[in-house]
């Protein structure tokens, strides 16, 4: 690989440096290419796509595919566009993220600062639940949601995402709070501060970084979820299920430009969150879960 150099890890020969930069740029192009293709082709009229080059920029720019994807494309049987499903996703994701994060913070606080016999077994069970393949709960969940009258509704999806999100949020907060000095909590107890007071006054003010991680993680996972959405969404399908409907519809001409506009619409919220706060996410995640 770097035969030209012998001195240091950071001091490399010119040839090696060119090689490294070249490789890094090639990979950057690899990661960017699909986004470019989607964006460029979502702004072309369909005639330019079917006869043309996917890598070419539009000759006649148009935002019509975007309008169509948003408000008039055929999703399933209704020509509603993706708009109502986008709204479903928002209505689902906001409460689900908030509730699972609050529970995660409280659980993490209990599991690190109010420890009791057997708490690590409970945590182990909770942790394992993060990684189960959801196929194992699909059948009973469908039955329970039906019995509760929550099948095919946004509240049903919120419940599902809260239940299966708590494991991860608890994991994040537990690892984060474990590093917080327990002496401070003890001192506050001796001063007579109670459970919630300590949480509110001591733990919460330092919880910013891990809350960013938890919120981004939950937001991305729940927004991007497809399996639960398509299984239990019914009349209230989220954006991912609707996008899949749009793209897979077998009737009529395949409107690739509309598909791409729809795909970007589905990706936009998580991309925005990532652009705004991604840096904090990686930083916080690394502090919390991977010991370097």
């Amino acid at each position: 690989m770097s035969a030209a150099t012998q001195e240091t890890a950071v001091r490399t020969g010119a040839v090696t440096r060119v090689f490294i930069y070249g490789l890094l740029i090639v990979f950057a192009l690899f990661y960017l290419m699909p986004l470019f293709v989607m964006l460029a082709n979502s702004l072309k009229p369909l005639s330019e796509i079917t006869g043309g080059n996917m890598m070419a920029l539009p000759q006649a720019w148009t935002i019509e595919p975007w309008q169509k994807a948003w408000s008039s494309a055929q999703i399933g049987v209704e020509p509603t566009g993706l708009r109502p499903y986008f709204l479903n996703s928002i209505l689902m994701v906001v409460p689900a993220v908030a509730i699972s994060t609050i529970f995660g913070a409280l659980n993490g606080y209990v599991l690190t600062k109010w420890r009791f016999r057997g708490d690590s077994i409970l945590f182990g069970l909770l942790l394992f639940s993060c990684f189960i393949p959801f196929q194992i709960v699909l059948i009973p969940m469908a039955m329970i949601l039906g019995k509760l009258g929550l099948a095919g509704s946004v509240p049903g999806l919120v419940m599902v995402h809260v239940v299966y999100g708590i494991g991860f949020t608890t994991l994040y907060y537990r690892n984060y709070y474990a590093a917080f000095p327990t002496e401070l909590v003890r001192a506050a107890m001796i001063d007579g501060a109670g459970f919630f007071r300590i949480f509110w006054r001591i733990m919460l003010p330092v919880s910013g970084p891990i809350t960013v991680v938890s919120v981004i993680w939950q937001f991305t996972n729940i927004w991007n979820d497809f399996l639960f959405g398509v299984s239990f969404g019914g009349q209230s399908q989220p954006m991912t299920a609707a996008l899949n409907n749009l793209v897979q519809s077998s009737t009529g001409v395949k409107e690739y430009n509309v598909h791409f506009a729809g795909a970007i619409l589905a990706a936009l919220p998580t991309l925005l969150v990532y652009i705004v706060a991604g840096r904090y996410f990686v930083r916080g995640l690394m502090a919390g879960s991977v010991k370097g």
Partner: protein
Amino acid sequence: MAHGVPAADFRTRLQDWIPKLVLSPSLAAMLVFVYGFIGFTVYLSFTDSKMLPSYDWVGLENYSKLWGLSHWWTAITNLGIFAALYIVLCTGIGLALAIFLDQKIRGEGLLRPVYLYPMALSFIVTGTAWKWILDPGIGLENTMHLWGWESFHFDWIKNRDFAIYTVVIAAVWQTSGFVMAMFLAGLRGIDNEILKAAQIDGASNWKLYRRIVIPMLRPAFLSSFVILSHLAVKSYDLIIALTGGGPGRATELPATFMYSYTFTRNSMGIGAASAVIMLMTIAAIMTPYLYAELKEKS
């Protein structure tokens, strides 16, 4: 003062209970929705459930039927190919990018988000994009022809023998940047003094990385292996969006198998049995890892 003491006692006792009360809704939810449901699905896998759950015990019949189905063997074989390539490629690319990015690269702040953004996308979006790029008629092959490379041929997504590899391409595109971030964090955590000492001893770059740096990245290797392998077993969305399991059944995975047997082919018992096998696969990977992780921390 005299009646202040019992009040304090009551308060202390209450304080003892509050943490457990706070934890209890989550634990109850976990016991019902995770472990209760697992138990129920395991039970169903021993019954003759068809379109609806039935409670007639049939023993291991569903499992013997399952392992007799060529459809299931296709799914299992595909999972083997997919998981192996996905894990190896993501780890290899992630590690290489992290090491190269760690060489005081100008523009690192620009490159890192470019490598990472795919992980913010839904697999449905990734599948939609790659389905098109890989389509020989309008995608990459067509582009190469238009650019003058007439003999360029790339129709894997339409080819039964190669379609599973297109799933690997799209999945690696989505996740390798995330693995890069894990390795980069590991690299940044290594003490520079160790590296300097090794350099003074005259170790070459290659040797330095192979003998010292990469072994020190063990925790990052382990975490990424666990994350990638459980993602591989759970892969469902990407298959649905990219190939729909086809051409034919060429890209079926256990997750798509389970869904179609349970909900569209009216063989809930067999579907449940396949879900149990998926769970056992993940448990075999996760349990030792979680055990070690918890033991170390407590």
